[in-house]
């Protein structure tokens, strides 16, 4: 018997889901914003009118106009180009954090939920301990050990994020574990690793991915916060949090850097959150309208 065929398609009915999503105003607005930001990030090298890192000390704090559509910063770098590069930075960090935490969290969550017993208790205690730390505190610890920078952001946010994914995965697996096809696989002599790969993973992947994507807005917010505090992305790489940090002291005389940076960051996170909430509502209609 082909073990893949033994696992029935479960969980998501994509056609019904798409229909339900299209009816929701929030999903349409959020989806449009997210699609725009993702497109900008993907096409960043083609879209930036100037080099985002090239300085021009004869053209610092230029007001919006020509040739710098949104003006320049204290080193004469083009703000629009840096906003575009910043979109790329935000999404790359969010993508990296999501990839790491999904890989780690899904594996450990499946182990805890499927194997159970002592493995489960030990893993869940570790999850509890990790959740007992406020997230900035984790970032401060990581920054003390590793110094500031992009890697510090990714490591800190991964440490903050994996316990949640592990718990979520475990809760899905606890339900699926009781299904008949799992018993069938065990009886047929399928190895535990194969059961994870062929039976558990395909059945939890879709709902897990959707729930995890709900968190992208919060990951972007956390990255920007760390960069704003100076613990995260460092110069000359463009990040929205870093731009707002640079722009705030000059708010009285040259407000454009901080204002445009805040606008880009705020709009993007609103987009991701609207889309995420909509997806969650569509998956779980009981929660609709809350």
């Amino acid at each position, binding site marked *: 018997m082909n073990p893949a065929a033994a696992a029935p398609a479960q969980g998501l009915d994509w056609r019904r889901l798409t229909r339900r999503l299209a009816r929701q105003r929030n999903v349409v607005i959020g989806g449009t914003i997210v699609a725009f930001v993702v497109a900008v990030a993907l096409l960043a090298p083609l879209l930036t009118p100037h080099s985002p890192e090239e300085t021009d000390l004869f053209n610092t704090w230029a007001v919006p106009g020509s040739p710098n559509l949104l003006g320049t910063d204290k080193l004469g770098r083009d703000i629009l180009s840096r906003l575009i590069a910043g979109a790329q930075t935000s999404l790359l960090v969010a993508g990296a954090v999501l990839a790491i935490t999904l890989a780690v969290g899904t594996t450990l969550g499946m182990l805890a939920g499927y194997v159970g017993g002592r493995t489960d208790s030990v893993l869940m205690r570790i999850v509890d301990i990790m959740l007992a730390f406020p997230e*900035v505190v984790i970032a401060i610890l990581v920054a003390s050990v590793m110094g500031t920078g992009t890697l510090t952001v990714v490591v800190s946010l991964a440490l903050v994020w994996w316990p949640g994914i592990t718990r979520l995965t475990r809760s899905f697996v606890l339900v699926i574990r009781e299904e008949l096809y799992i018993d069938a696989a065990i009886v047929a002599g399928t190895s535990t690793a194969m059961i994870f790969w062929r039976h558990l993973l395909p059945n939890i992947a879709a709902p897990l991915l959707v729930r995890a994507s709900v968190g992208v807005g919060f990951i972007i917010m956390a990255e920007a*916060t760390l960069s704003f505090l100076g*613990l995260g992305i460092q110069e000359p790489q463009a990040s929205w949090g870093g731009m707002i940090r640079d722009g705030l002291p000059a708010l009285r005389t040259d407000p454009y850097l901080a204002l445009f940076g*805040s606008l880009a960051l*705020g709009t993007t996170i609103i987009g991701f*959150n609207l889309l995420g909430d909509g997806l969650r509502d569509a998956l779980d209609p009981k929660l609709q309208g809350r």
Partner: protein
Amino acid sequence: MLRFVVWRLVMIVPVLAVVLVATFLATYALPGDPVMVMLGDHSSNEEMAARLRAEYGLDRPMWKQFAVYVGGILTGDFGMSYRYVRIPVVEVLQDGLKISPLLALAALGLGASVGTLAGVIAAIRRNTATDTAIILVLVAGLSIPNFAVATFLVYAFAIKLGVLPVAGWGRLDQTVLPVLILTIPSAAYIARLTRTFMLEVLGQDYIRTARAKGLSEPVVILRHALRNIMVPLLTSMGIIFGGLISGTFVVETIFNIPGLGRMAIDSVFARDYPVAMAIVMLFTAFFVLINLLVDVAYAIIDPRIRQRMVPA
């Protein structure tokens, strides 16, 4: 009940152990010599270096340093600062200890009252323009990071209108913007939860009964509905405090407020690890304590929780 409290206290021990080891490793076991940082221009002075090393206990073997570190913390001694040489960490933290909790408490009080009110109004006026407007503000308040909100508010109120100071600490008008910005995310979060819980409670039979027996609408809302959502609201306190902790870091940085958050960031940059790690420990201990209180309060109100959270 006692079993629950004891179990919950036992669960704190590994958290505190992890904090102790992590902060110790970050402070003492990192490569690089803190004595050289402290000496600055005098780093060639061997005699001074040896004396400082002895005073800070850095010449002892690692296990002994750890024992002294743990023993010190248990008696409220967090060691000495690297940046302000030979000044105890506790003294460095003193001013910040008076500021950050004040900021957080003010924001919590304001956030809880405004948030609950907004949530109740949105739930009562469900699917009206008022509800939609409140939801829009909530989405914005939860989504836009507080330093981005700060940019707009400082620009509008401090620079364009000139009614509030741009930064600083010590006068009453200097607290308005920081507290407001710290309040927004917690108020939005509380309002959103309140609206959700209210909508659920308002559909219950006992609300219909209360209305049927002729109680006025305010009495139904206040005495029957609002009272029943206090329990679920209470359980979200941990998340709200977590948000307030990161909030103080941001707000103190923006407004140049000498609180614990800004001090922690400054200390990381100045490699003053004893101070940074003491703050890490304070915030973690505080967060753990809040979550403990929330869980115990929850268990007092709802006996089922006692059963569920203690493993058999």
